[in-house]
């Protein structure tokens, strides 16, 4: 049971650290507000820099141009990325974390060649077309239809919660290809070219206001049959490959950032006052901050344990559900603490009187989505109870 990074891990850290120290400030501040096209340019330019420096696709195999770093090097990578304040994975998280990895395991040689190198270089942005207004937690009940028409499918239906759909080049799309069989058995996984005719994209206003999400409406959209990944009606299995990646170490950098956020809250608590004293002198608040700091350390240890255990199997295990569940609920407790440290100043979403409102409120509002996206906390609990603890299934 050894927590020490190896010499080669530390060598990797030193090199990466040196590169980030120069590259991050040189890349400048991210574009403010909601100019998503500027955001695309900023994020994809960063991706290109990662690529040129040999750090793109840290967990991608070498044959697809990735770094194929060991799992512990990946942990080092996430730690350093977070500590250096490097840009968030950004507009192409679907391509890098879901679409790309799915093509690697399920795609044809042509599909891989057409997409993987471009995703990696930041030249191809992907979005996700899984959820529908009528199919959220029960994802397999999707009703978007794909009807075969020669060498094309004609796709009709609507998708929701598509991040960055308005600036994506491709979408990973789940469609129903056979409505007559049980719901899991009639689904196919398609690569949707976002410039195909019949696609309408409407931005979705979330509780955080304008944001990255859109609804996507599809009206007889032609998709070549060669864009199907996996066999027809085998899309549910293909989907689960993707979902497994989603529950792996995808949040690692954010966890390290959250540790830094707690330190920032401590600094903030020493600045703001309560009862004529510093908020930091409030024992209850201080204890709560110490408590979440400990929880974040425990979470990071849990990630290390899970990563080291999965080196044997090669795939992220079911334990990812426990990590996701714990991380998202802890994130919410931390961001609520942030709101309490700010006090009434938290009524302003923009910085006021030198306080970091934008950051704190950004965390608070964003935290709400974490326990819903990529399988709600309730779904994660079902998974843990049924697949890990062996409880009988719900009637479904």
């Amino acid at each position, binding site marked *: 049971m*050894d*927590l*020490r990074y190896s010499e080669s891990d530390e060598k990797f850290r030193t090199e990466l650290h040196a590169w980030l120290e120069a590259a991050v400030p040189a890349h400048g501040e991210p574009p403010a507000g909601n100019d998503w096209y500027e955001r695309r340019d900023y994020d994809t330019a960063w991706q290109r820099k990662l690529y040129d420096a040999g750090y793109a696709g840290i967990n991608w195999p070498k044959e697809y141009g990735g770094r194929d770093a060991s799992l512990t090097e990946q942990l080092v990578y996430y730690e350093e990325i977070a500590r250096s304040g490097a840009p968030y994975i950004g507009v192409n998280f679907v391509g890098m974390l879901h679409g790309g990895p799915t093509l690697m395991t399920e795609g044809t040689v042509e599909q891989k060649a057409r997409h993987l190198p471009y995703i990696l270089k930041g030249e191809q942005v992907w979005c996700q077309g899984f959820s529908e207004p009528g199919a959220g937690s029960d994802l397999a009940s999707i009703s978007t239809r794909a009807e075969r028409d020669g060498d094309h499918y004609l796709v009709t239906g609507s998708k929701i919660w598509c991040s960055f759909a308005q600036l994506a080049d491709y979408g990973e799309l789940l469609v129903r290809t056979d409505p007559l069989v049980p719901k899991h058995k009639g689904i196919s996984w398609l690569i949707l070219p976002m410039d195909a005719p019949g696609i309408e994209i409407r931005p979705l206003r979330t509780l955080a206001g304008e944001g990255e999400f859109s609804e996507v409406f599809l009206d007889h959209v032609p998709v070549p049959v060669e864009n199907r990944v996996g066999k027809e009606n085998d899309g549910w299995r293909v989907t689960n490959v993707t979902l497994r990646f989603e529950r792996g170490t995808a949040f690692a950098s954010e966890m390290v950032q959250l540790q830094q956020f*707690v330190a920032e809250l401590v600094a903030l608590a020493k600045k703001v006052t309560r009862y004529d004293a510093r908020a930091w002198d409030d024992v209850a608040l201080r204890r709560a901050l*110490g408590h979440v700091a*400990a929880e974040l350390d425990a979470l990071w240890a*849990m990630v290390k344990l899970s990563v080291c255990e999965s080196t044997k199997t090669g795939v992220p295990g079911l334990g990812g559900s426990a990590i996701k569940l714990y991380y998202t609920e802890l994130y919410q407790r931390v961001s609520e603490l942030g709101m309490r440290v700010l006090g009434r100043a938290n009524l302003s979403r923009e910085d006021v009187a030198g306080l970091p409102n934008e950051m704190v409120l950004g965390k608070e509002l964003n935290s709400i989505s974490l326990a819903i996206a990529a399988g709600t906390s309730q779904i994660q609990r079902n998974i843990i*109870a049924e697949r890990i603890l062996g409880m*009988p299934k*719900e009637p479904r």
Partner: protein
Amino acid sequence: MDFQLSEDQKALQAGIRSFCESRMPKGKLAEIEHKNGFDAGLWAELAEMDVFGLRLPESDGGVGLGNADAVIVFAELGRRLLAGPLVWTHLAAGLIKGAASGEVVVGGLDLMGPESGPLLVEHLDQLDALLILRPQGVYRVDPRSLSGRPIAAPLDPFTPLHHVERLPEGELVLGPAEAERLRLEGAALVSGQLLGIAESTLELAAAYAKERHQFGRAIGSFQAIKHMLADMFVRQEVARAAVYAAGATLDDPGVGDVVRAVSTAKIMAGEGAMKNARSCIQIHGGMGFTWEIPAHFYMKRTWVLESVFGTIEEHADRCAELVERSL
């Protein structure tokens, strides 16, 4: 980095687990209860299993293992609610002759925390030696020199208590830095026991949820129960990671802040044990409120373990201080 149980550690865990299961089968608890929590035969066997001499160097007759190994062993002791001053005697190995071999039973009192309540000494009648941790150092006291009133109704039936009015100063055997170290190691070992409780209460609850039927179905098929069990699983896993990390960090202080790692373990394992023990009782419904179902013993032992080597509150305060210092 290879942060998982090594093959040797898996074998160590399996060995101590099968020992505990054979010596503490279901029903044994009632028997031990009538012996005030102490079974001299079992104590001798634990010594033979090297539970006390585990970390003592081989040159001193021990096994020469580390804290990471010790927390694994203590998790197994916690799982089966083994009683007696296990942690103190383990800490005393090498310090008090005969502790490692089980011939001398060593108890202790931790007076380094912020609390100054009544002095309650555990297992006093069984003790051959008593260690006291004070900020000034580690003191040794002859337990026979203490006059104390036995507590007729201790919360944990396996942890008898004496209320001691006055404590002699005792003989200074180690300095303040060593007192601090023993307290950290003690906290890590107790965290191991608490992890074991978090695990076994989940095991008990999950088994009951599968076998107990209401409304014509196993209660484990209801989401209300499933979600409680899932939360128990998460607490168990978080506690496991924190406890292992504390052991590994004590063994190799270069990988992190030892104090912070131990505090994190005591917080997470303490909460995991307490909340899982409560959920275990709740999932057992009315049966959980009976003496017969052992769920309550886990909750009661958790209170005993929570009270030593720093409470959740004390450790959270310490973590806050450490974050402040790191700014």
